């Protein structure tokens, strides 16, 4: 298994290490529920160094990216982050990613760990410019996320840069945090306020330790992949491999606002336009269990005893204390209040469609 720079730190903190797509990472340190609540009420510190970073640089960078992704970055200014799906020609999803505009025609793409190689190859394959650098720089960066309402207060102790000025989905480069130069980005994957810090990989442990010190007494806890998943699930943020895949388009996943069908040609546009014009056949729906039981990824969804879809994510939403799920279902069963059945371990249990995100601040 691959290790992030923080591997030794995780084991020293009692982290329960699992194999997450080839990476040795902690699923939890104390308890998923405790870590989840700490992030909602105070703050949690996550090692997300496994995420991939790909640098795109050169005079054609903007034009090239416009062609590769579904969102529109033509009006994006330096210091901003944009979320976007990246699609195949058939409208299926290659990945969903964050794009940072570092300079004019210099972008940093942050991609899902398990997709890094695939994305890199896809980006190379579709590059027609001779004047473009596409470079996998994943191993150069460590990535630490501090998430939760106390994040700014904790992080501000370590830097003279006023964090107030970094607004949501903005970032600042070369910020000195605890003596380490970092990209400080006000983004995250939990539905809480917080920051993601990109640092040279050899500085990752140092920064982690400084943030943990600064957070002592503020309720900061180290948080693992388990809490990361329950937190993103409650706010219905998609997870690649579950809500998105080569077989699921961003429109089906409810990410239409990140698909700009009116911009110039981009990969997948024709297929997505057709989906939009003909109407979607299936759609991601949030649901709540009516009967007692726990919906899990991959469970079948039935209506009138026919299979109408499957659960992409599900389980207990710890903040709401409800058993909830996301399911990709035939569109006629995806309206608020619609009832269907989830096949849970041999039993058909009733569920009803509710609005998403399940949880909002």
């Amino acid at each position: 298994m691959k290790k992030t720079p923080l591997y030794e730190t995780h084991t020293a903190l009692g982290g329960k290490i699992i194999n997450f797509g080839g990476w040795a990472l902690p699923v939890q340190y104390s308890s998923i529920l405790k870590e989840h609540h700490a992030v909602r009420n105070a703050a949690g510190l996550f090692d997300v160094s496994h995420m991939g970073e790909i640098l795109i640089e050169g005079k054609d960078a903007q034009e090239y990216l416009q062609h590769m992704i579904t969102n529109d970055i033509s009006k994006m200014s330096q210091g901003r982050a944009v979320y976007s799906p990246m699609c195949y020609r058939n409208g299926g999803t290659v990945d969903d990613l964050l794009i940072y505009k570092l300079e004019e025609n210099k972008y940093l793409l942050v991609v899902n760990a398990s997709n890094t190689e695939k994305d890199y190859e896809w980006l190379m394959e579709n590059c027609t410019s001779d004047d473009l650098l596409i470079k996998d720089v994943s191993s150069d960066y460590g990535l630490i996320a501090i998430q939760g309402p106390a994040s700014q207060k904790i992080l501000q102790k370590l830097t003279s840069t006023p964090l107030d000025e970094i607004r949501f989905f903005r970032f600042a480069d070369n910020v000195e945090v605890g003596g380490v130069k970092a990209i400080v980005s006000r983004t995250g994957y939990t539905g809480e306020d917080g920051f993601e810090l990109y640092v040279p990989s050899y500085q990752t442990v140092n920064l982690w330790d400084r943030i943990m010190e600064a957070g002592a007494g503020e309720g900061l806890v180290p948080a693992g992949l388990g809490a990361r998943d329950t937190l993103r699930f409650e706010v219905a943020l998609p997870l690649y491999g579950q809500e998105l895949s080569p077989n699921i388009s961003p429109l089906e996943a409810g990410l239409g606002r990140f698909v700009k069908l009116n911009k110039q040609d981009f990969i997948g546009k024709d297929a997505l336009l057709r989906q939009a014009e003909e109407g979607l056949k299936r759609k991601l729906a949030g649901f709540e269990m009516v009967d007692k039981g726990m919906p899990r990824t991959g469970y079948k969804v039935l209506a009138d005893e026919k299979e109408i879809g499957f659960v992409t994510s599900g389980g207990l939403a710890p903040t709401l204390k409800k058993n909830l799920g996301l399911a990709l279902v035939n569109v006629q069963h995806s309206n608020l209040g619609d009832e269907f059945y989830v096949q849970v371990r041999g039993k058909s249990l009733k569920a009803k469609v509710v609005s998403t995100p399940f949880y909002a601040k």
Partner: protein
Amino acid sequence: MKVLEDLKYAKGHEWVRVEGNKAYIGITDFAQDELGDIVYIELPEAGIHVDVDDIIGSIESVKAAADVYAPVSGEIIEVNEELENSPELVNEDPYDAWIVVIDMADSGELDNLMDAEEYEKFCEEEA
């Protein structure tokens, strides 16, 4: 990992505490630790007969689900309904939080189960 000397253990990580002809069944410390935060336990109904390895319940944690298998055959004479509202008791004290009581049909089946030492070795191999 905590293992108690006076209990018997099954390969599905259930423990058995014998009191006369009654067998108290729960899941081990190893099992609760593997599952993590337990959030829901589906209990069987009292009065049913079960054979060895029949499913007698299921345990859902935040991240996983696991069935509980009958380590011995007999009639389920009691279920621990307290766990319905407080499944976390299994995390807190797995050897106190019994799930069901079975009136054993054949106490000779206990010989097929592991003792504490064997179970400890079994867990080491599984880990």
